[in-house]
């Protein structure tokens, strides 16, 4: 097997977060972008949200991280909300290195499919999930069924998140 230092070098150069020279900017906590339980009528956080920065995204979502890092990934927060009936909605929020990065990853995730909905700068609703982007952020919300109530909550939560975002860093 190749020396681990070479492997590390490969990983470092693969990830734009390490290799791209960029002025550090003040980062607001991604947790502050999550919807408040007080706005969610019966939906509560199901456990602590998980966060990932740079290469650690692979530990969180495995091969799912590939496209994000390729397009310029910075950090992410992932939360699950649960209501009184035991239903769950997952919310994955990715901060990309630039709005252009967010636009590219959104196109990959949402494509031209789904129903266009009014959230952020661009959004599409699929059978049981919703993708939207705003500024440097790409957000995916997913449920476990296709019931109308679930889809309505996906949309409502997405709009709450979008409201909490500043348009661009």
């Amino acid at each position, binding site marked *: 097997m190749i020396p681990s230092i*070479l492997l590390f070098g490969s990983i470092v150069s693969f990830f734009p977060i390490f290799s791209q020279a960029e002025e550090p900017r003040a980062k607001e906590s991604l947790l502050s972008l999550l919807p408040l339980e007080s706005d969610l009528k019966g939906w509560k956080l199901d456990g602590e949200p998980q966060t990932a920065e740079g290469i650690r995204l*692979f530990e969180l979502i495995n091969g799912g991280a590939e496209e994000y890092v390729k397009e310029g990934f910075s950090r992410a927060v992932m939360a699950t909300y649960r209501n009184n009936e035991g239903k769950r909605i997952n919310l994955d929020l990715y901060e990309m290195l630039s709005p252009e990065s967010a636009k590219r990853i959104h196109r990959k995730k949402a494509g031209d499919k789904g129903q266009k909905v009014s959230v952020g700068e661009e959004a599409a609703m699929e059978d049981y999930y919703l993708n939207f982007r705003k500024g440097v952020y790409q957000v995916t919300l997913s449920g476990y069924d296709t019931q109308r109530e679930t889809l309505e909550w996906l949309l409502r939560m997405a709009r709450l998140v979008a409201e909490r975002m500043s348009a661009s860093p």
Partner: protein
Amino acid sequence: MDHITRRSFLKRAACLGGGVLLSQSPLSGLAQNRLQAPPAPEMGPDLVAVKGKDPYVNTLRAIQELGGIEAFMRRGDRVGILVNSPFKNIGASVNPDVALAVIEKCLEGGAKEIRYLKDPHRGYWERSLKSGELATVLKALKYETGDHVKVEIPGGLSLKDARVTKDLWDCDVFINISIAKHHGGVLYSGALKNMMGLCAFTTNSYFHLGTLKLGWYADLDHLAQCIADLNLIRKPDLCISDATAFITENGPYGPGKLASAETVVTSTNRVSLDAFCCRFLGLQPEEVLMIGKAARHGLGEMKHDRIRIKSLSV
């Protein structure tokens, strides 16, 4: 199927194999390389596919039709189950009812311990309506210790060693429970790919970046070969594939478009299982590099007409 006869055969096969070595001497005696048994007419089907609305019932029946859980384990055995369940999106992880059915059968079969070899995502069991009634079953589970050991793989072409969960070597019986789903890199994620769940992150990084080409999926041939090589470390005693509902895009994590075949498939051979189940995604086994590479390692049969298949509906 007589499990004692089968076990005797597997032990003899392991002596012939020698495809893997544990580098830490206290564990060396535990290494088992159970080679693929050649098909024999009296052994029944190589693979059982059960279609029906209830994944739990499908799983029980598919195990039964392959010989029953007693064909794969003895009372007092420690059972390790590797369930593809780290992803929260629907169709990206094995339906928890499938895993529950297996765990319940292992307990019925007298398992001394059931070790979950790769922890599930948070809230996984609550996705099952049966998790309440099977609470005692879940309480019996032990989860991963997080300890890894270096395993030498002399027969590997691209992967010569790997850091693998130590828990695997503490089990008498190894059950691989995968989901038939899309994978953005190797096209298909099934039983062969599921073995990566046993490895440390550094090993999996080598699978993806080991030839120093930039990109997680930049060298798919290397990735596929590493997966085939990894499968030399230990043959599962039983493989189960969940093809009830699965993502057909945006894999392995999802979310993505869902398909439903309402089928659970069991086999003792992961190459045959993957060769059969990749068709649920419209793929031919030859298109999935790791299947061919694993077959060339002698790990199993990938040609459809050479696999004894029993299909039924419940």
